[in-house]
């Protein structure tokens, strides 16, 4: 019994079917009938519309309920994982700040004259090594390291290491602990530290609604506020034309009520903001277009977080509609990358951001400092090279301010 048909060299059915394939597609020419009839006033309609209606069993899709469109105002929400594409200049325009490349004289003098005992410095040096290499946490690294520069798609097996979050946490807590050890009970009694606090600060500037929902990994509060600094200069806020102040901040078009929230009650003794310590990690803070974050963009994050803390504090003290502050609010900002540390002071002088002239806010900064050059296992031994003693010194100056 033959299960298959005999294959002919010329298959009549296939030939007929191929002919039908081309003959079944007809280009319908316009005979001019429709135009001639419509000239006489006779409307011509497509019969297909009516045949579909005559079919009793044709499926009719129920009409979808169209909700009336309400145009909510656009809100720009800046969160922990966002980064401004134009860096410090954009942050300056958004918050109406001037940048000073040196700290106020009072702090610079303190830094120059401060001498720390060797045992505390040695302890801090050791704790950097411990937090980067000798800690017990071993989790697979999220980063893929290529085998060689010319082979970018071949990766080494992922190593087990301490997570960046833990490294930053250990460094920041150890810095504070060593400051407390050095200054003793007198200073420590006046301060309180809180971990993982959230600040919410809204601004409405030139028609744009911006909400800052930011968190500080360590927040140091004190009994007394930091004395405001004088900053007089001929500088003006830069012009970022043709870009707008809110470029690269994600926006939402749904309903959003701007909220302000300061995590500590104003009635508390320890409600004055003193220092915030921020963590940065390549994995957490990314651009939407997936390119590397530059130092300028890294610094802009510190400026905005300092601004958010100060603004939420001002709102909690003086209300949401405050424009001119009775007393400026100064906040010390320390941003850690594991190796790179950014020290800065944000001083909020005004919340009247719409006008270009008048009082402006200040951002005092130091050029970026590196904790060390290398902190790795070399030949099986932990190695920490070129440890920077100035960082702990700067931290002490900040702590005692």
């Amino acid at each position, binding site marked *: 019994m033959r299960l*298959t048909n005999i294959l002919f060299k010329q298959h009549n059915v296939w030939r007929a079917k191929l002919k039908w394939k081309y003959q079944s597609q007809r*280009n319908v020419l316009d005979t001019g009938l429709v135009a001639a009839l419509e000239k006489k006033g006779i409307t011509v309609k497509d019969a297909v519309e009516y045949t579909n209606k005559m079919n009793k069993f044709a499926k009719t899709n129920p009409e979808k309920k169209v909700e009336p469109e309400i145009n909510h105002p656009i809100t720009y929400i800046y969160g922990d994982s966002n980064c401004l594409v134009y860096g410090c200049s954009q942050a300056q325009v958004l918050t109406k700040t001037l940048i000073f490349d040196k700290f106020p004289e009072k702090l610079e003098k303190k830094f120059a004259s401060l001498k720390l005992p060797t045992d505390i410095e040695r302890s801090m040096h050791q704790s950097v090594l411990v937090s980067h290499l000798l800690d017990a946490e071993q989790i697979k690294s999220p980063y893929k390291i290529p085998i060689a520069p010319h082979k970018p798609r071949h990766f080494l097996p992922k190593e087990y290491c301490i997570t960046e979050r833990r490294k930053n946490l250990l460094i920041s807590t150890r810095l504070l602990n060593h400051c407390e050890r050095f200054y003793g009970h007198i200073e420590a009694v006046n301060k309180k530290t809180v971990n993982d606090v959230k600040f919410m600060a809204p601004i409405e500037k030139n028609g744009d609604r911006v909400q800052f929902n930011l968190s500080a990994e360590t927040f140091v509060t004190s009994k007394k506020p930091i004395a405001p600094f004088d900053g007089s200069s001929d500088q003006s806020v830069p012009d970022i034309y043709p870009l707008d102040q809110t470029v690269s901040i994600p926006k939402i078009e749904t309903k959003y009520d701007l909220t302000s929230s300061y995590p500590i009650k104003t009635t508390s003794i320890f409600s004055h903001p003193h220092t915030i310590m921020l963590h940065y990690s390549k994995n957490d803070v990314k651009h*939407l*277009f997936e390119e590397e974050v530059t130092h300028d963009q890294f610094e802009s994050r510190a400026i905005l977080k300092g601004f958010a803390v100060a603004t939420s504090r001002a709102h909690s003290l003086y209300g949401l509609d405050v424009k001119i502050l009775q007393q400026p609010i100064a906040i010390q900002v320390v941003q850690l990358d594991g190796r790179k540390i950014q020290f800065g002071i944000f001083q909020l002088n005004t919340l009247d951001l719409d006008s270009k002239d008048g009082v402006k806010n200040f951002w005092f900064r130091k050029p970026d400092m590196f904790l060390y050059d290398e902190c790795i296992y070399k030949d099986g031994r932990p190695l920490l090279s070129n440890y920077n003693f100035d960082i702990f010194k700067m931290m002490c100056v900040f702590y005692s301010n």
Partner: protein
Amino acid sequence: MSFKILRHSLNLFSKQLPALPVISNHINLQLVRALPHFVDKPTPGKDHKQYRRTVHFPEDGNYTIKPLDNTHLAGRDPVTGRVVAKGIGGGIKFKYHWIKYNRDGPEEGPPQEERVLQILKCGCRTADVALVGVGKELKYILATENMKAGDIIKTSKFIPRIPVRANEGDAYPLGALPVGTIVHNIEKYPGCNKHFVHAAGVFATILRKFDDRVVILMPNKREYALLEKCMATVGRLSNVEHSRTPIPSVHRWRELGNRPRSGLWQRKSGRHGRKIKKPPPMKLHGPPKQPEKPPLKLTINRVSKGGGTYINPL
């Protein structure tokens, strides 16, 4: 093997054999795959369509600068699933940067200014990509040869009486640019979403103008006469060395998504070797005159009285 048993043949596989007189000496069984099944495969290269990848554009259709995921097609047509373009397959999956080819600008008044923020590489194309910001918007465009971060580029749709002295990266209508200008990313006709000249290091030259048309010399040495309102970007595309860099190994060839090709060279077939012939005459491009109506497709399937469908073998 799957079988399709035609209605007029005996059903050998039923439990109760019908007591029918013998109609024919053989059973007319046909394998489904032996039935003629003609599939319309598209010709590769038509309408500049590529069969390397399908990009997963966002569902809401809104433009985004987020690099998009894609799936490899390996030379297959996504509609029919058949291989249409040979030699494509595998390779590194690069993310796709959605480029805004349409350079929108004001039709009167001063040109719109945009700032170039960063130049990046895109694995899905040979030319480099520039991240550009204007107002509240960030977008990607094709980067030109000497473009760098911080540059300001202009766009305008106004055609002045005296041609504009344009800089690299600026976008103006063809009628506004002087003869001899080097351009790329040229619109086929105003309002069309199709643009010419995108590859690394290529450019077109404006040769002459007549009536309301501008003649340009394309990289393939053909002359196209386009309407003067078509937008074009001034300059030569980036990554000029691309055509001069050889592919050093088979490994790299496969990483780029190309499958092995046969090295067969036939001496007398007439296929290999340089061809020297006169270029075709100047082509006038413009909007289609009438909207193309799709052809009417006739069928000869009919519904039987019993309620099933009878499929005529023709």
